């Protein structure tokens, strides 16, 4: 039973969800409220990871993280090693890969907030930022939670991208999905089954708890 891999996957998913919350909310707010005519380009870029095969994304990330690319060299100079084969590298890869799973539900929730409420807040002298915090966020809680849960679940099950940039290092980049794959490759079907079922159980419980707690809906 590869508890280490499971713990690593949960840790990765939690970190990525937390970061996507901080990074995804401003992006989603901009998408929901901007009237720039080229906004659709930003929306398309955010949605790209949905259609890119994870291995393609992983491959390009591997190249970008390597010492031959300007970004890779920057990181190398700052930290003495490349981003690849590290947990931080996985976090970055997962952020890109799971971005639309956070941003799209966030943006949809923000858009669904009655425009008049935002107008009312403005006429009462409350700044846009405060309006966001006091009106939009509370009324978007369902969508925000959905976005967090989706990015958590999506990262938990991630395989292709981790495969490409992870390097399968136990305790560092050997996530549970890689572990299950290894077991299958080694014809260790019994062990693979065990891990897979445990992953399924944990995911199901997490999702159920979140959806149960998130049943409140604002009426009017």
């Amino acid at each position, binding site marked *: 039973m590869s508890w280490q891999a499971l713990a690593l996957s949960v840790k990765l998913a939690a970190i990525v969800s937390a970061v996507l919350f901080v990074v995804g909310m401003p992006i989603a707010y901009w998408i929901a409220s901007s009237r720039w005519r080229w906004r659709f380009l930003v929306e398309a870029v955010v949605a790209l990871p949905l259609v890119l095969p994870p291995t393609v994304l992983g491959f390009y990330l591997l190249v970008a993280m390597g010492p031959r690319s300007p970004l890779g060299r920057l990181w190398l100079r700052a930290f003495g090693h490349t981003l690849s084969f590290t947990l931080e590298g996985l976090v970055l890869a997962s952020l890109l890969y799971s971005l639309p799973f956070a941003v799209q539900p966030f943006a949809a929730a923000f858009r669904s907030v*009655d425009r*008049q*409420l935002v*107008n*009312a*807040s*403005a*006429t*009462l*002298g*409350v*700044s*846009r930022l*405060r309006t966001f915090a*006091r*009106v939009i966020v*509370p*009324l978007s809680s369902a969508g925000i939670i959905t976005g967090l849960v989706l990015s958590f679940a999506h990262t938990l099950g991630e395989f292709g991208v981790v495969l490409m940039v992870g390097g399968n290092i136990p305790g560092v980049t050997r996530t549970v999905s890689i572990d299950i794959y290894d077991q299958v490759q080694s014809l260790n079907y019994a062990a693979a089954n065990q891990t897979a079922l445990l992953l399924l159980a944990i995911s199901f419980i997490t999702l159920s708890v979140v959806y149960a707690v998130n049943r409140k809906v*604002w*009426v*009017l």
Partner: protein
Amino acid sequence: MKVGTDGDAEAPAGNRALSVHIQKGFPGGFELAAELEAPAGITILFGRSGSGKTTILGCVAGLLAPDAGRIAVGSRVLFDHAQRLNVPVVRRNVGYVFQDLALFPHLTAEQNVAYGLGRLAAGERQHQVQAMLEQFRIAHLAGRKPAELSGGERQRVALARSLVIEPQVLLLDEPLAALDLPTQSQLIADLRRWNREHQIPILYVTHSQREVFALGERVVVLDAGKVLAQGTPQQVLRAPLQETVAQLAGFENIFDARVIALHPPHGTMTCRLEGSSVELEVPLAKAVVGEAARIAVNAGDILMAVERPRGLSARNVLAGRLVGLEQEGITVHARVDCGVVFQVKLTPTARESLALAVGREVWLVIKTYSCHLLESEPG
């Protein structure tokens, strides 16, 4: 203490009038070109839906930007296209009660009212909120969410929320539309009391004549983006000069007529209604015999009798037959065929005491001064 107006000069007490001169075009062809002055007190914006009333409110609040023009409260300019000045919404200090109220559903009544007072110290804020809640008789509902309040209670919360920030202008968009009559009356009373105490320009949008006469000190009539008339309710609605205003003001009876005789010494002239032999004596106007005219009579200005009346001052007594009788709320709408069909408004009491029924022979009495000659409109 004025909240939310950093650095803006307070308008001198003597001149706090709202001045609006704006143009705004919309895709699809609608053009708004409005010029109006609203002194302290209640100014009604009256017109059909789509005439631009809500657009004007949006421009004054700063939620919409006009294409050109100027908006000012006293000496404080909120918008001036020529000078590229456009004060952002959050700094205009304009209270706005939206048509659907826009109460924050996740906050209690008290939190809604306190919402705009974020910059005050907690104690001061609490004090002002409490005072406002009491003034609008909703203090006992402080802890309830909007979903738990009735229509009238929500309306009062919305008003309290906008007024607690001590705005320089108040905008109201059909505030009484969804309420029953007793609640409407109560709210009208609340508003008038507040108005007496504070005296700021209030723009009040409605398409109800009742509200015009109950509240308005001034009325501005709008149609298709243009101001048709401004003045007191009496001037504008009781004696409309323009047909559109007449229609808006509920003059149900508008007829084509031809001048057949002039009586200068009496100050009247006689017109025959087209397509009939009905003749009405109307106030004298600059006209020649044979000229066409449009005559408007308010249904509420016509008297009905079940016997031929005698000894009346009124010059127009017409015999006719009752061809329609409908009750709508507290108004009875009757239709009487005198050669042309007149609409007459009666009370239910009248209907009962006269034992009116369709087919009955009746007489209509119309004063000369109840007949309004409408200006011929261009085009």
